[in-house]
């Protein structure tokens, strides 16, 4: 029992929770959920959803693995390589997650079941696409009742998508401040006024927000039973689906979205860098299970990693670059593009800071690509080289890192509008700063450039 650890993300649901036993993730099912679990399987819903890749498959393991006495079953879900959160997803990832949730609700109704919650955190990206991970979120469908997770769905999916689509793509970050979704009154007041006249958004966001405020203390649940039918719920789901499908955002105009058409690399230099990166990744031993590409832009070099068979998370600060990566490489099942500001990485959030893990808590990565990034951290954001080395040593074990010197045109561009207060930004200082944390295994000039690529291994602490 001492090796067991209940995870902070799933304590709210009396149906069960997830925990780790000897490093393996398990899901305990409590007595109140037993009937629903049987129905999930016997109705054929579990089979249809898992075959379609919409629900994470599980195997049942012995009850002796239970975390506590309330358990009636213990499930071992298929492992998700990297947990990500809605505030790290690009527009199309959040949209796909929303449509997946609605599709699951429609299929569940065919089998006499319904979702009892519709949290965006119930979706993860697995093998390149969205998958529902909370096996305990299904309950028998009560035809007389409205859709219980309607408010939650609108807060977790519709509100951020409307804000991203009509106001500013960066408002996806609001989801990190509101763990149960963006309050509808807030989203309604932030949205541009013409969205009120769009039928779906008008009803599901604006009117919904007003109804919530007006009936806040009405206590309506008991009174509303018997007033809703199956056709009405199908209509609601259909209306939400067409509203979400109608939301668009085009990735353009940001600083990084067109980065690779605006670099100082010649074609030959780019090819040489591809080769070097592949050679360095191939030298990582043992072969990495997970690679983090930090500052991945549109995933140009993350794709080198996935082509070698490595699960790769392509982190980038720019939602447009991440969107492009996601849309262009959907077929690449090893690629996971995510939005991440490395100067202010995702923190631990939620109750007792245990509900959602920080970036570092989801590591360490076996290997990291840090290409054409160091000058943005050191010069663009004034982060000392020693600090960068220290952070990277916490984030991963192996490091493929590119040093970009001051005479590189991209660094010159950074320095063009500011005073050069970086006398320590030299290749010698870079090597000295990383020496305390990493051992240099390989070092090569990138042909056709003034840059140098390093393969480093973290020193044993």
């Amino acid at each position, binding site marked *: 029992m001492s090796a067991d650890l209940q995870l902070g993300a799933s304590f709210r649901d009396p149906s069960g929770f997830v925990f780790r036993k000897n490093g393996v993730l398990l899901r305990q099912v409590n007595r109140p959920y037993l009937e629903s679990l049987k129905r999930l399987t016997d109705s054929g819903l579990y089979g249809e959803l898992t075959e379609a890749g919409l629900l994470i498959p599980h195997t049942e393991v012995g009850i002796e693995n239970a975390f506590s006495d309330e358990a009636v079953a213990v499930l071992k879900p298929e492992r998700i390589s990297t947990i990500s959160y809605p505030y790290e997803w690009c527009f199309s990832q959040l949209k796909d997650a929303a449509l997946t949730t609605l599709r699951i609700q429609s299929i569940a109704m065919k089998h006499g079941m319904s979702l009892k919650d519709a949290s965006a955190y119930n979706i993860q990206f697995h093998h390149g696409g969205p998958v529902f991970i909370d096996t305990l979120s299904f309950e028998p469908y009560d035809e007389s009742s409205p*859709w219980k997770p309607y408010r939650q769905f609108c807060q977790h999916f519709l509100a951020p998508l409307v804000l991203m689509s009509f106001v500013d793509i960066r408002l996806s970050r609001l989801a990190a401040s509101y763990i149960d979704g963006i309050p509808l009154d807030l989203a309604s007041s932030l949205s541009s006024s013409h969205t009120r006249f769009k039928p779906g958004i008008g009803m599901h966001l604006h*009117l919904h927000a007003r*109804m919530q405020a*007006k009936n806040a203390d009405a206590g309506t649940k008991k009174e*509303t039973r018997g007033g809703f039918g199956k056709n009405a719920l199908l*209509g609601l789901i259909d209306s939400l689906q067409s509203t979400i499908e109608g939301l668009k955002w085009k990735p353009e105009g940001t600083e990084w979205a067109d980065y690779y058409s605006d670099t100082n690399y010649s074609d030959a230099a780019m090819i040489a860098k591809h080769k070097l990166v592949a050679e360095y990744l191939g030298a990582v031993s043992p072969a990495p299970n997970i690679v983090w590409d930090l500052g991945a832009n549109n995933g140009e070099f993350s794709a080198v990693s996935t082509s070698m068979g490595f699960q790769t998370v392509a982190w980038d600060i720019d939602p447009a670059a991440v969107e492009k990566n996601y849309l262009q490489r959907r077929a690449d099942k090893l690629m996971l593009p995510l939005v991440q500001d490395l100067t202010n990485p995702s923190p631990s959030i939620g109750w007792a800071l245990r509900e959602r893990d920080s970036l570092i808590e989801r590591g360490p990565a076996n290997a990291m690509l840090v290409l054409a990034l160091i000058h943005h951290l050191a010069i663009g954001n004034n982060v000392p080289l020693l600090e960068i080395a220290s952070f990277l040593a916490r984030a991963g074990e192996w490091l493929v890192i590119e040093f970009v010197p001051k005479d590189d045109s991209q660094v010159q561009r950074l320095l063009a509008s500011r005073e050069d207060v970086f006398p320590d930004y030299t290749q010698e200082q870079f090597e000295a700063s990383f020496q305390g944390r990493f051992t240099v295994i390989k070092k090569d000039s990138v042909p056709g450039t003034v840059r140098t690529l390093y393969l480093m291994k973290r020193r044993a602490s």
Partner: protein
Amino acid sequence: MKKLNRALNIALACGCLLTICQSANAYIDAGSGSYLLQILFAGLLGGLYFAKTAFGNLKAAVVRRASMHKSDDSASHVR
């Protein structure tokens, strides 16, 4: 189908505007407004969904019938 969707959406918007109400400051009970909104629109949502599926089925039946006629015609030409 797109035109029908648009017409249905406009009907839904009219419903929204007719029932729009003023906000009030009160303690937040997260579910009440959401439940009431669904109840209020149950008939409209159900009706629109019924109309949409009925139109879809009708359209599919017409297309099926038309394609059957076409294949019958081409079969008679072969003979």
